[in-house]
């Protein structure tokens, strides 16, 4: 069972995306802000993190930096989710250590593709 941590403060987005992912067979763990997201990643050890960028308490960029700085969570692929369709945001996300990036509104097939690609890469790395 693939476990995905979704860090998202908007209730509707959280509910919607988590339900759609669950319908496709993923186990979804939720966090509402950056700080709790980092904690959930450490305690739940998901296979992948979907990180909203504009989060309360700790924003997505900083949360990602912390994940990548911690040996326990450093290998977890992080996909940045942001409503800002600007390349500077993309670069900012990649700089913070995100492995990929997707813009809202979520195009589910596209996001799934990215999720699978990262998970596959991850597994391949493990097998190597």
């Amino acid at each position, binding site marked *: 069972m693939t476990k995905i941590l979704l860090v998202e403060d908007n209730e509707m*987005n959280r509910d919607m995306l988590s339900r759609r992912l669950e319908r496709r067979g993923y186990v979804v763990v939720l966090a509402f802000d950056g700080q709790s997201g980092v904690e959930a990643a450490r305690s739940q050890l998901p296979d992948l993190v979907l990180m909203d960028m504009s989060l309360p308490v700790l924003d997505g960029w900083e949360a990602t930096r912390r994940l990548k700085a911690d040996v326990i969570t450093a290998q977890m692929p992080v996909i940045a989710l942001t409503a800002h369709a*600007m390349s500077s945001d993309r670069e900012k996300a990649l700089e913070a250590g995100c492995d990929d990036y997707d813009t809202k509104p979520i195009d589910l097939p596209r996001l799934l593709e990215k999720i699978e690609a990262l998970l596959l890469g991850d597994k391949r790395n493990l097998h190597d």
Partner: protein
Amino acid sequence: MARKRSVEDIQTYAQDIVDTVREPLLMLDTTLRVRSANRAFYQTFKVSSEETENRLIYELGNGQWDIPDLRTLLEDVVPKSSVFNDFELEHTFPIIGRRIMLLNARKLQAGHHGELLVLAMEDVTERRRSEADLEAIETYAQNIVDTVREPLLILDKTLRVRSGNRAFYQTFKVSLEETEERLIYELGNGQWDIPNLRTLLEDIVPKSSVFNDFELEHDFPAIGRRVMLLNARKLQAGHHGELLVLAMEDVTERRRAEEDVAKAKEAAETANKTKSLFLANMSHELRTPLNAILGYSEMLHEEAVEGQMDALGADLDRITVAGKHLLALINDILDLSKIEAGKMELFLESFDIGEMIDEIATTIRPMVDRNGNTLHIASAPNLGTMHADQIKVRQGLFNLLSNAGKFTQEGTITLDASRQVMDEREWIVFRVADTGIGLSPEQIVKLFQDFTQADASTTRKFGGTGLGLALTRRFCQMMGGDVTVHSVPGEGSVFTLKLPAVVTDGADLLAAAHLDLAHPSEGSETVEPMPTQDCVLVVDDDPVQRDLIQRFLSKAGFCVRTAAGGEAGLRMARLLQPVAITLDVMMPDFDGWSVLAALKADAKLREIPVIMLTMVDDPDRGFTLGAADFATKPVDWERLCQILRKYACPNEPCPVLLIENDGVARATTRSILEREGWKVSEADGAKVGLESMRSERPSLIVLNLSTLEMSGIEFVEHVRQHHEWQSIPIVVVAADELTPEDKERLGSSVEAILYRARNSQEALLEQVRDQVSQGTRMRRGR
């Protein structure tokens, strides 16, 4: 007897003297009878001595001297004093008319003649008249000066006020009495004692005869804080000597108005930015709930399909379609506000054109079908790939196609695409043709404007924001292309979307440069994303030249970035770390040589090869390569290679002697020669060259004529005299045109003379290629 004669002699002598005096003189006795007069008197008053001598002065010439003023003078003043000076008498004399006489008198004790009164009369009529004229002129001048509304002060050399005009007295609320003959600094309780003015009047004015628009801001006690614009002119004013006219224009109001305008402009710009920001934020805020609507409806749709609730599925589909439409509109607004804020970026990638068209056709077909139209795709075969922002190309084509579908009923919509070469550049040309309602010329004019549809009623009838075409055009322009339209009302429209086959970020930069021109306050600090591939930086102030260089360098496959000036060039060089820089020598802000110096002084930029470009007068020649910092001479390499091949020996590698005093040029040439399969031996001068030839006979000599200690020509002559060397071909590289004498001396002893390349884009290309490969090697070496 003798004594009497001598007395007579003296009298005659005195009379002679009196007669030579040109001023009329009368000698009167104490009874005011005329003893004698001089010649000038008789001539001036046209009277004879008979009707003059021994007469009472008042009787002279029919009583013409019986003047009350004269009587007063002679009878009251003269008896009391022995002399009177400059008594002015104005009188109408019967014979000579109205005259002004200046009378001077002196009493003499003339021996036995007793007391005499010498009355001298000077006719000052003319003098008085010219003085009056002069005064009239001065009054006239003063009147003019007074009518000038600008305050004026006339100062003498010592900076004392000669006069001021009415405007001066009114403006500064001072009186004439407290102004004239005062030092300018003393005026109005020292209100003009201003350090800046002192500097101006005491340092600047003495050195120049004029100064213009000196702005003085000062708190004047009587009138408050004012900004005065001072203008001065030195005049040579006849007997007045040198005068300084100081004009003071009160520009306080004007400055205030200018400030207001600047503030208003700033406010407008801020408002515009605020608007763009608002639009961007607003669109963002709108997208968040829309995101949820779309997500949930898609989700429900999936569930409905799985649960086989088809009717529900169709409704949910409608929600999704409407939501996506709304999202598209919001995205358009966001895009446009991004373009306006100068924040739109290009994401360039290479993609297959045919594939893209197929995908667009699949997406658009249902929309086109809705009005009973047929979609026809007619693209040329083997279109291959293009390098552009795929999303924006798609968006543009999608816009054109959906418009065509919207405005056409039961007709045909055709999309064709082709690859064309125009202006030595490859273009991809897309055409969207429909058989719809068409557009009138008036509608075409408005077509590409933001928020404008061809007709206001169109909005109601067909929907849409009216942003689609405006956006499409802006996107195309960002990529260095454009959209044009040709239409006949009632018959249909053809929209042509033209894009470079290889879009470069340079186009983006050009657009940014245009934005900079439009909003200079924003500066040119548009931070571009770092290019992924190594780029050549083109620095040139001339947009045409920049575009030209950019075009053919990018056509040759280089990634090109451009900068419109020296400073921007330096900044971009630091940002981009380009593999090579082409630098225009003549630039206004700071010239190519200074930029070069700055590049070479920067440790991070020092290694980047720089190619200097310089324009020649003849525009047909395009650009000529000047001395490049690294390559020194832009040799026509291709030609050199051809020659080399001609002289290649049967058993490679063939020995070639390269004589070049410039180390960098030597290295460059060496690499070219080696690439062509030669074995190179080098010499940094002609003498060394000759020595090396003694140990190994080269099969070819490449010679730089400007080799220092021995002239290149001498070297050639040396070689030709040596019987073993006579047959070695020599290729001469000359930096400048040779003189006819030099050519003659070289004559048939050299094989070819290569001049630095002119009009050779190829040469530049070679140059850049060469420098880039060299640069890459250097980087790898590090």
